[in-house]
């Protein structure tokens, strides 16, 4: 029973804190560029503003276009239910393992790409085609990295993986190091950050994710933006859970949830700093360099898997 309460708590935390994390990243970014920043609460205000605005639909928008924001938002919420952020005691993680997680993100991406093409503008189609090109490179690399971790831990269930890595008997394994490097590259890609995509750009022709959602407005846009913030939060949380699981509460120890929460905030906050350092120091890659970038991620994941078989 307590599992379900934790589950709900965790999802509420995801929905509630994701905008703040986004605000934190923006704040750090401003500071790193020598500017004074908006409040950390600014993303909440932006969301409130968008929710209070009317939705403007293109004349030829079909149900796909209207349906996608809700779907994207729900998949992000669902993903929050299976990633052990606070506790490994998650009833849902028995039914949904890490492959389901990848599939959830893939569904959201699939529908976003469809919605981009649905209204028939040049930018939407362009964004969709770029997104799919990236997906075809990033998803195999993501799966490979995850399989490496699964092999090393003997399970595809995220909770189980965390328990294995977090157990006192666990040691630093070379396969996990490789998988971690691959994961960082993939996370930058999946969340649309520099050097892959620029979340702050106004240049239509360079956009990837933004190009697909260019026609969205009002609450639709709010949901998509919110889901984007959650996705960023989730990737940081997956990284924290898999590669730095300290503090996550075990099954049967609900009392350590507050402590787990504190650890999570610290870990995610720190990951924001790393993210901003990467984003400030790098320019965006030329689009076709992405193949090399994601090729490197795939290579790292494969090396991790090889080193598991050879060394472990």
């Amino acid at each position: 029973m307590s599992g379900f309460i934790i589950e709900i708590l965790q999802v509420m935390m995801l929905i509630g804190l994701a905008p703040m994390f986004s605000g934190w990243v923006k704040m750090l970014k401003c500071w790193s560029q020598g500017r004074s920043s908006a409040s950390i609460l600014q993303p909440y205000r932006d969301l409130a503003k968008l929710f209070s605005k009317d939705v403007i639909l293109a004349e030829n928008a079909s149900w796909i276009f209207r349906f996608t924001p809700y779907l994207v938002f729900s998949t992000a919420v669902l993903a929050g239910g299976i990633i052990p952020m606070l506790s490994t005691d998650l009833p849902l993680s028995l039914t949904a393992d890490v492959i389901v997680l990848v599939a959830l993100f893939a569904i959201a991406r699939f529908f976003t790409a469809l919605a981009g093409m649905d209204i028939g503008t040049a930018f939407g189609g362009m964004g969709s085609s770029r997104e799919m090109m990236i997906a075809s490179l990033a998803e195999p690399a993501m799966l490979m990295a995850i399989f490496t971790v699964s092999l090393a831990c003997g399970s595809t269930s995220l909770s189980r993986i965390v328990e294995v890595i977090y157990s006192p008997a666990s040691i630093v394994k070379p396969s996990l190091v490789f998988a971690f490097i691959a994961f960082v590259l993939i996370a930058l890609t999946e969340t649309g950050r520099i050097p892959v995509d620029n979340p702050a750009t106004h240049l239509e022709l360079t956009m990837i994710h933004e190009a697909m959602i260019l026609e969205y407005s009002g609450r639709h846009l709010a949901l998509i933006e919110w889901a984007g913030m959650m996705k960023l939060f989730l990737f940081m949380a997956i990284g924290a859970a898999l590669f730095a699981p300290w503090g996550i509460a075990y099954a049967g120890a609900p009392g350590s949830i507050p402590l787990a929460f504190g650890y999570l905030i610290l870990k995610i906050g720190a990951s924001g700093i790393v993210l901003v350092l990467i984003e400030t120091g790098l320019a965006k890659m030329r689009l076709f360099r992405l193949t090399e970038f994601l090729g490197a991620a795939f290579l790292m994941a494969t090396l991790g898997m090889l080193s598991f078989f050879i060394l472990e």
Partner: protein
Amino acid sequence: MLKEAIDNVLGTAAAYTERQFPQSVVSCTVPRERFVDAAKAMKKAYALLAAEWASDETPFGGGFAVYACYRWGSEYLIVRTEVPVDDPTFPSLTKKYVPAYRFERQIHSLMGLVPAGHPDLRPWIKFEDWPQEAYPLRKTFDASKPMLRVNGEYQWARAEGEGVYEIPVGPVHAGIIEPGHFRFQAVGEMIVNLEERLGYVHKGIEKRFESFSWQDGVRLAGRVSGDTTVAHSIAYSMAVEAIAQCDIPERAHWLRALFLERERIANHLGDIGAICNDAAFAFMLYQMMRLKEMLLRTNLKLFGHRFIMDRVIPGGVTADIDENGKKEILKELNLLSKEFERLVNIYDENSSLEDRVRDAGILIPERARELCTVGIVARASGLNLDCRLQNPFPPYDRFEVNVPVLISGDVHARVWARVEEIRESIRIIRFILENIPDGSLSVNIAKPSPDTSGFAAVEGWRGEIIYWVQAGPRGEINRCMVRDPSSVNWLGLEQAIPNNIVPDFPLCNKSFNQSYSGHDL
């Protein structure tokens, strides 16, 4: 040299005029059928086409006249040909000079003269929903009435074939920039063709000049392109001073140079930052904007306007600088060059940025010459053209201006040309502050005599700005031709883009950073 080239080919058919000022700019009238021969002779003499325009000379009792201005080195030569009212055609120069392509479309659209042999007579600057026979630059056109609207359609160039798709961009963009339409034909991400469509900020500036007095015209010139207000005011003022045959005080010249170089630094700083920002390297944008803002605030404090607008007038200047002002600028320059060099270092050593700016948007030197590009764009593509060198006004004749010339013609070359120019401008300003002579700020300008014309070319931060003014029968402004560097450099962008990928366009475009307003007039 250009004059000899004309004489060799046309002999006595070329009639030289004494009514073009300054006299160093040679002007001759040739028969209509020899107009192309003159262009041929100029091409052979290695000259570039600087501008081509038409003037309505019916107030003198004549018809129209078409002018082509050629330049090579420090020489300018204007070839004029008369076009009767009842047969408004003239031979097209497009076969000899590529930039004539747009000049002549513009002449056709706004003055209603038909360039015979021109391959493409779609309207340019003028909109398709304006009546065909509305020619705003003609004297018979009444500018006080609103334009009638008709239905029209613009025919775009098309690329067809398997997998070719079209991306229309603009004129309304997602960012706050000027309006312009770009139509890409692409295969995958590779751009096959780019067609520009400009004219969305056509304000009828050339027509408006004709209802101003010579003195008031400078205020309009200062607003042709807001970011180049100083250079445009100087160019207009110099053209007026030429036609009025008046010399201005030495100190006024030096102050103009000071304003011009400050404008150059401020805009180059902004551009370098904006180019880096288009590669998502926002750090550079904010740092450069900070430095630019510092300059603008000093401008406001010392000269009373952030962009030094309306401080240059025909006859001189209206803002002065005292000892305290000099000290303040010197102090600011020291800070600026220190911080600027640090940022240049960061630019230079960031490999991810370098990967974006190198080999993107290449305008090869041959093409740059063929298109007669000017300014930064030309100097990044191996053309050593700078009016500060070739047509110096004081104090530029007192020292050597070391303008950077690069040959790679890519985005990096255009960034680096700006970096070097900022360094040079800082040096020039220091020289000016040390050596500026005393004297008055302005003199009165006499009214020009009828049927004379004045010419001036000034190196603004984008490049060579040309003004040509013509006095009417009562000594009023009969025609004021404005040639912003953008008029020719936009063609350079169009030619530099094919074979780049679509997401690289904004970066390439920003490295050109041409003015829409200055082009559309």
